[in-house]
């Protein structure tokens, strides 16, 4: 069911000139910033608190609270996280390419609210077109006066630097991102301190916000935090971008009111996912990026609500939903996810660096039909070494949450599809059809 909720972050993205300053200004652009600048900074932050805006990067931490934790200091930084790399997540990519001015405007609002004069937008390096559009928007914003020494004539000074990444999933982790921004390998920092709000970029207090989080700010300031909080339900307020992929008729991003819509709506509604390709039954789906435990058909009626999904044993994470149908080999899917983690482990912590390789190898031989029945317990034991107890939310033996994300898919497949794993062992091969390109 699609609700009557307004489109907050995607109001411009389908227009041909969506990325230009002209279009931005013609559609209320920089009005949110203008209004914010007319308020004292704490009032801007209070408005965002009222909105109950949860961070859209994956952890779902309240954005307003993140700002309030910022340590007092003469120099503070704001870093916008546009390093979107969670497999099957492609919402920030779209926002960066299609509404870069909205990001610049949101960045300026967040910077003003937190007393920051230097902001960085860290854009994933693979987004070549996105980087061009962001930099162009940044240049236009300077010329327009929305950035620079005297923002919109108020005397507030703000500099924004667009910074390119260079291809490393782990740099989406906020402390790894700061290391990368300092010109180093993307190694997550040891905690505590737990939050860059205390010790961040160059050791100074730093706010790190996701691109989609930031993109909500112009609307929130223009329409008020209450209007945002009136959408959705409870702590899951507003609208949110969901990225739908896998075996669905219409893969794509959808801006949906939180809490009002179910996974079934998202996957099957003709105006959203349009159902499963070829009409096959659903086997399983991933509710929030490959770090999230899988759900089966019996969880289709869960609402797209952060708490509801958390209580059901998974997470809404980055808002990416991957659909697997009856032709999908769940063992192969889990192996591919394990392979991803193995390739992207930064290598600092032994459980993650070594464990991910073990898991990938065991899953590969199981999928190929070369495994043994004991391999199922062996791979779970390897997972247990990374995240003891294999519980949810997961326990952690590593510096960052990359490690405990590895077991999610493996534990899911072992619990939900043990029989299918055993068939691979007994048949000496995969009983499912190969993943083929759709033609015609």
């Amino acid at each position, binding site marked *: 069911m699609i609700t009557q909720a307004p489109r907050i972050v995607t109001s411009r993205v389908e227009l041909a000139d969506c990325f230009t300053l002209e279009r931005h200004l013609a559609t209320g652009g920089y009005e949110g910033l203008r209004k914010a600048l007319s308020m004292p900074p704490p009032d801007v932050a209070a408005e965002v608190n009222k909105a109950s805006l949860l961070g859209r990067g994956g952890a779902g931490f309240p954005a307003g609270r993140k700002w309030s934790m910022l340590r007092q200091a*003469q120099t503070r930084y704001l870093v916008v996280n546009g390093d979107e790399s969670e497999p099957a997540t492609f919402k920030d990519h779209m926002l960066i390419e299609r509404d870069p001015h909205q990001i610049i405007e949101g960045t300026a609002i967040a910077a003003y609210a937190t007393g920051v004069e230097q902001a960085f937008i860290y854009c994933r390096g693979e987004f070549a077109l996105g980087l061009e559009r962001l930099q162009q928007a940044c240049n236009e914003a300077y010329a327009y006066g929305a950035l620079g020494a005297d923002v919109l004539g108020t005397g507030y000074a703000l500099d924004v630097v*667009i910074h390119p990444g260079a291809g490393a999933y782990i740099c989406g982790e906020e402390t790894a991102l700061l290391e990368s921004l300092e010109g180093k390998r993307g190694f997550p920092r040891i905690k505590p301190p737990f939050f860059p709000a205390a010790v961040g970029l160059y050791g100074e207090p730093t706010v790190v916000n996701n691109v989609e989080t930031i993109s909500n700010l112009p609307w929130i300031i223009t329409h008020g935090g209450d209007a945002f909080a009136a959408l959705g339900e409870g702590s899951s307020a507003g609208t949110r971008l969901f990225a739908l992929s896998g075996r669905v008729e219409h893969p794509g991003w959808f801006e949906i009111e939180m809490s009002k819509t179910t996974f079934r709506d998202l996957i099957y509604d003709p105006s959203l996912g349009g159902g499963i390709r070829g009409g096959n039954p659903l086997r399983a789906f991933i509710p929030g990026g490959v770090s999230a435990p899988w759900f089966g058909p019996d969880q289709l009626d869960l609402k797209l609500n952060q708490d509801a999904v958390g209580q059901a044993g998974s997470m809404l994470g980055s808002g990416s939903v991957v659909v697997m149908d009856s032709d999908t080999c769940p063992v192969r899917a889990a192996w591919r996810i394990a392979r991803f983690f193995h390739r992207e482990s930064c290598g600092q912590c032994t459980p993650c660096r070594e464990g991910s390789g073990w898991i990938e190898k065991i899953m590969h031989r199981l999928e190929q039909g070369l495994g043994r029945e004991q391999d199922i317990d062996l791979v779970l034991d390897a997972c247990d070494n990374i995240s003891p107890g294999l519980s949810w939310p997961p326990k952690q033996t590593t510096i960052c949450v990359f490690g405990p994300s590895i077991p999610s898919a493996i534990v899911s497949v072992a619990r939900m599809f043990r029989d299918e794993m055993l068939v691979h062992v007994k048949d000496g091969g995969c009983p499912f059809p190969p993943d083929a390109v759709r033609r015609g």
Partner: protein
Amino acid sequence: MPHLSCDNRAKAEAIVACYPQRRSALIPLCHLAQAQDGWLTPAAMEEIAELVGCTPAEVRGTASFYDMLHTEPVGRHVVTVCTNIACMLAGAYEVLDHAAAALGISVGETTADGEFTLEEAECLAGCDNAPCVQVNHRFFGPLDPDGFDALAEDLRSGRLADKVPAHGILSRVDRSVGLPGKAARSGTGARAAGSAAGQGSGSAAGPETGAGPE
């Protein structure tokens, strides 16, 4: 004898001036060097080290962490086929296998004529167009094997020269407009190691007085 061209050297210095600490410019400068040479040469790494104030080994040590930075020569077109979950479910391995056969190389190799390097990528955030492929980080997809052949032919003939520039994601990014020179703001000169100390109070100087870019 500088390795970077005059233009690129000026661009590099402008980029360094964007940051409170010049080491932050390391990755952007690696992209810039790749735009010039196609890959990150030892000579470029030496010059980057000098520009950002670290050793060439530190440049290599950092660059080797990142998938996009090539410390060995690559082909004119780097073709990266995503095979992660969403693309795999859409048949990405069929596309990758076909690409390897069509180009006559394995993943990680470059064709003898130097036209193509084939890579297997992790998720490129193009899952709504799965299976998706990047060529020098420009997106194509959804692709089937026939579509790949057509793409390779267009690349060979130069028909896609507009959409797919040579290496270097910064080749069409002009960072030099409107950015205030940090060094001027903190009053420590263009090459200062730039402790962030002068930042907060430097708001009086703006783009007009910036010494760096422009």
